[in-house]
Each structure stands twice: as C-alpha cells, then as structure tokens.
C-alpha cells in the first residue's frame, strides 16, 4: 500500500505545482493577456531557463544520491571561459570561425565539465568529504581559477557566429537553447528511469550501506553522478557563453541557490533516493512563469520574486507535511 501512497504523495506534489502554474496562467490571462500571451514572450522564457535549468538537472542527480552539487555555477563559468579563449584563438581576422568549431567546443566543454565533475566525485567518494562542503569548496576553487585566469575580466571578442548559432531559433520558432535543454532532460530522464544506472543511484541514495552490501560500486556510481552533473553544468555554461556572447567568472552567481530551490521545490528529497525529473521541470516552469509574469506589472518591485519563491517553497513543504502526516498516522 505504501508505495502506492508514496506515489500518490509525489503525484500530489506534482499536482500542486500544476495547479499553481495553471492558476497563475489564468490570472495573467485576465490581467495582462497581451503582454504575456505572445509568441516572443514564450520564446524568451524558453531561451532563458535552459542555462540554469541544465544546472538544476545536475543538482537533482546529485541530490538523488543523497548529495548536492554547489559547484555547478563555478563549473559552468570555468568551462565557458576556457571555451571562450579557444574560440578567440579560432576566430580569424574576418571574425569567422571554421565550421567544425562549434561541435568542437561543445565536445571539449563536455570533457572539461566531466573532468570537473569527476574531481567532485573523487572528493565525495574517495576523500569522504560531505558533498555540501566538497562542492562548496570546489565551486569556490573553480570560480577562483576563473578569476585568476581572467583577472575578473570578461572574455569576449570571439566570433559572433557562436552566439548567433546558439541564440538562433529552429524553424524560426524553437530556441536552440531549449533544444539543448530538452535533449539533456530527456537523457537524464532516460538514465533515471530506463537504465540500470538510474535504479542504482536511487538505491544508493536510499542507503549507501545497503548498496555496498548489495555489491554496487558505490564510489564509481558517485563519481559517475558528479560527472554527469559536471557535464550538464558545462553545457549550461556554453549556453551562457552564447546568451551573453562572453564569459566571466561571476556570471550567474545567483543560480546556485536558485538551482537548489528549484530541485527541492520539484520534489527531490534532499536526503536522497527520491525525485523525478518531471517535478524539477514543473518547478522551473512555475518559477519562470511567476518571474516573467510579475515583470508585467511595473508597479510591483521585482524583489517580491524572491519572497514568492521562498514562500512557495515553504508552503509546498507544509502542504506535504500535512498529507505525509496523515499517512503516518494512518499507518500507526
């Protein structure tokens, strides 16, 4: 019975997120229809969230194993800065880059992201540092390397071709950033629900001891998870590189907490073992809608956004508390 109920609770969580999104959209429809319901607006939103959406995917994966990844932003910036330098080198006098440049930088970005992720994984699995501190430290370290490399300057002046390619819209309709995000989200979904790896990390997040006694390679699993997180973060960095046509050590510093907030709001259990990608995507959509919608009201300070974010998070948790509690009482 319990799993069913468990499922119900998760679904209730999703249900709440959906209700909030719908209610908000209805409200916006009544008050600011023209300013919100237009193609450009949806395209803008779809192009904006992938950069931190990707990072949230990484945080989510690590949280399922019972950890956390606070280094995603540092990772993204370090990757994008290194790739920016590479792009500068590849840009010729006419401001063009060879056709293979974009696939190449993406490939290298994935490699760099993976390396940085592996470093985190080693700290967590082999050095046994609590993930929250290991990734806090490595995030600081990555940012530090960025600062040391760039002296805090933005790295830019590479061919505009890169930015225009990523900032483009497929068929003039779908932002390329969204496509990258969708591919990665599908990939993560597939990994979590359709592969052996997915089952294993849920189990690992539930009980590391039992995982060891069941013969799982816990260290390798952790390293792989942080590696994945590193890759998605690096891709987030590549999107930032395109969106801002430059890379800098302190881009997106607010994203760290934002990602944790999104993931928790999406119903991922910070203790590990539980969480679905659909919840995380709903959380991203909800927060993006709220923020964009709120920007349609010039008189409302944008500062209320953080108030609403925090409020939504706490309220959803309290609602869960009531349903959960009922369940526990019933189980008695």
């Amino acid at each position, binding site marked *: 019975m319990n799993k069913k109920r468990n499922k119900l609770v998760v679904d209730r969580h999703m249900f709440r997120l959906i209700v909030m999104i719908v209610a908000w959209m209805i409200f916006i429809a009544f008050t600011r229809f023209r300013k919100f319901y237009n193609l450009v607006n949806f395209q803008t939103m779809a192009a904006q969230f992938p950069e931190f959406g990707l990072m949230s995917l990484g945080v989510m994966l690590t949280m399922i194993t019972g950890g956390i990844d606070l280094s995603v932003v540092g990772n993204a910036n370090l990757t994008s800065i290194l790739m920016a330098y590479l792009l500068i080198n590849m840009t010729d006098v006419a401001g063009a880059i060879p056709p293979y440049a974009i696939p190449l930088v993406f490939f290298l970005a994935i490699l760099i992201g993976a390396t940085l992720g592996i470093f985190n994984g080693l700290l967590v699995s082999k050095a*046994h540092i*609590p993930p929250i501190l290991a990734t*806090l430290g490595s995030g600081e370290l990555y940012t530090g390397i960025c600062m040391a490399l760039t002296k805090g300057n933005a790295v830019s002046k590479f061919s505009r071709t890169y930015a225009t390619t990523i900032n483009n819209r497929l068929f003039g309709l779908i932002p390329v950033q969204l496509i990258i995000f969708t591919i990665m989200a599908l990939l993560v979904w597939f990994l979590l629900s359709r592969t052996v790896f997915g089952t294993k990390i849920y189990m690992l997040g539930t009980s590391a001891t039992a995982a060891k006694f069941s013969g799982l390679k816990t260290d390798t699993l952790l390293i792989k998870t942080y590696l994945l997180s590193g890759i998605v973060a690096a891709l987030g960095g590549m999107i930032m590189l395109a969106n801002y046509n430059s890379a800098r050590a302190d881009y997106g510093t607010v994203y760290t907490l934002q990602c944790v907030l999104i993931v928790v709001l999406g119903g991922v259990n910070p*203790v590990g073992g539980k969480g679905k990608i659909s919840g995380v995507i709903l959380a991203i959509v909800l927060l993006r809608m709220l923020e964009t919608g709120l920007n349609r009201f010039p008189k409302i300070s944008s500062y209320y956004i953080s108030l609403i974010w925090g*409020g939504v998070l706490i309220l959803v948790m309290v609602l869960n508390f009531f349903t959960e509690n009922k369940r526990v009482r019933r189980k008695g």
Partner: protein
Amino acid sequence: MKNRLKKLTSRNEPYIFLVLLAVCILIEIRSGQFFSPNNLVDIASAMIVPGLMAIGAFMVIVSGGIDVSFPALASLSFYATTKLLLDHNYQGGVVLPFLIAIGFGALLGAFNGLFISYFKLPTLIVTLGSSSVFKGLMQGALNSRQLAVIPTGMREWGKKALFVAKNPVSGLTSRMPVAFLVFLFALVFAFFLLRFTMFGRGIYAIGGSEVSAERAGFRVVLTKFLLYIMVGMIASVAGLIRVCMMQQAHPTNMLGMEMNIIAGVVLGGTAITGGRGTLLGCMLGTLLIVIVENSLILIGIPTSWKSVFTGALIIIGTGVSAYQVMHQGKTRSSKGKKQEVAQ
C-alpha cells in the same frame, strides 16, 4: 598524561590550530606584518561578525540541522532597525537599536523555528526558503537601499575603541572596537549555555538522537524553537554590529557569506551530522577562514586568487577532518575488538 595526549590527538582542534599557525607564519614571512600589533587587532575586529555568525551556525549544526538563512535574517533585521530609527530621527544611544534588532531577530528566528520544530521540515529547505522570503521582504516591502547615514548613537558606538594598537614600525594604528566585547560576551554566553544548562545539553542530545531526547524528557520541539529564536537574535546582533562598524547599512552585502561561515564551523571539527563539536574548534575554523580572506594582499597573492585559496582551504580542511574521522573509526573498531577479545 598519555591518555590525555591521545584524547588530544583524536580531536580536530590541534590540527586546525597547527594549520592556523602555519598560515600565520607564512603571512609573517611574506609580509613581516602579521604579528604586528595593529594587524592582530585588525584580525580580531574582522573576526567579530563572522565569529558571532559562526556561534549561531555552530549551535544549529550541533542540533543536527543546517541554517543557510542567517545572513538574510540578519540583513532584514538590521535594515528594519536602522530604517525605523532613521525614520523617527532617533538620536539616542546604542542600546535601543540593539534591543530592536534582537526583537526582530527573535521574530524572524521564530519563523524558522516554527517550520523546523513544529512542522518538522528539513532545516536546509526551510532556511533556503526563509532566506528568500527575508530577502524579498527586505527588498520588496521595505524597499531597501543602502543607508549611508546611520543614527548617531550607532555611528559613534561603532567608532568607539577599547584601545588602539599601534605598529611601532609603520606607525599605523588599528582600533579594537567595543563590539569585540559583545563578541566575547556572546562566546562566553554560548559556552555557558552549551555546557552548563540543560537547554544547551539538550541541543547536543537532540543532535545525537532526537528520539532518545524526546524519550528522556527533553522538550525537543520547544528546544529547537528557542534555538532558532536565539540564533536569529545572535545573527541580528552580528548584523547590527556590522552596520555600526561599517558606518552604513547595506542591505545585501552580507548575503552569500553563509557558506563560508558553515565551512569554517565544519573545518573546526563540528560533525555536519550533528551532536559533536566544540565551540573552540568552531572559532579556530572561523578564524582560519577570516585570516586567509583578509591577508591575501599581505601574502602577496593577487586578489583575483582569493577564491582559489578559500576553495582549496575548504577542500583540504574538510578533507583532513573527513580522513581523520575515517581513520579514527577504523582504529577505534579494531581497538574495541581487541579489548573484547581480551576480556
């Protein structure tokens, strides 16, 4: 004696102390300025605010939680206090501001405490949410902006010095702010509280096992609730001290310092899972972070390398203590075994 030595080496504090000493000597070698009286005073005064914050963060971690909201909490309460006083053209001393700030701190701490103790929600999530709420309230509802002018009483108190240290060579002077006394008082208070009151032992007990604490008769919900109120009060005092020392109130300057504070606390040997840790270790860890953050130019490292340094410090520091815990666990179990065999 031997036993004592063993006890000492099995703890974290001596190692942190050695690392601290090494860093100080490095700075001294590089700059010749570290052990000058005025630099030491500077470090002591730089320690006040992070030190206070660390006391609060330490108590929360010992109780088995983790609080990331204290900078936002402190910002909201000092901002509200300063603004309120400015609006009423307050001319008096520093006592009233502190009382008001403590009041706000208690209120906001109670907000955290309500969700954490009564609803039993995970502390990380609650404080993540509440820090967002506090920030929103401050910036949205209070329409915060930098307050470059603060009430006279606060300004004067912030400038007041216990004594002034002078560097005999360069002639530079540094003030030891009166606020340092507040820090010392809070430290002694926390020490007394944690060691000599049932409330304080209750915090440790809850961190050790919440169920056992409940059964032993500790009022777990109330203890946690009061704990968060107290942490709110301490954080607010720290915030207001910072305002006085800075001579201005900047609403968002403090945000983001939570992670470094937590890192300092854990660096000092506090178990992130709760129940274990000493105030001494916590202070040593925080001091290490404060010194490194404030001495890069003295060492001659370009400021752009600052994050590399703090990052590496966090990794190495926590790595060492993680290794030690692991190592300790091993020796302990094999030792325990032998004893059992010997029986």
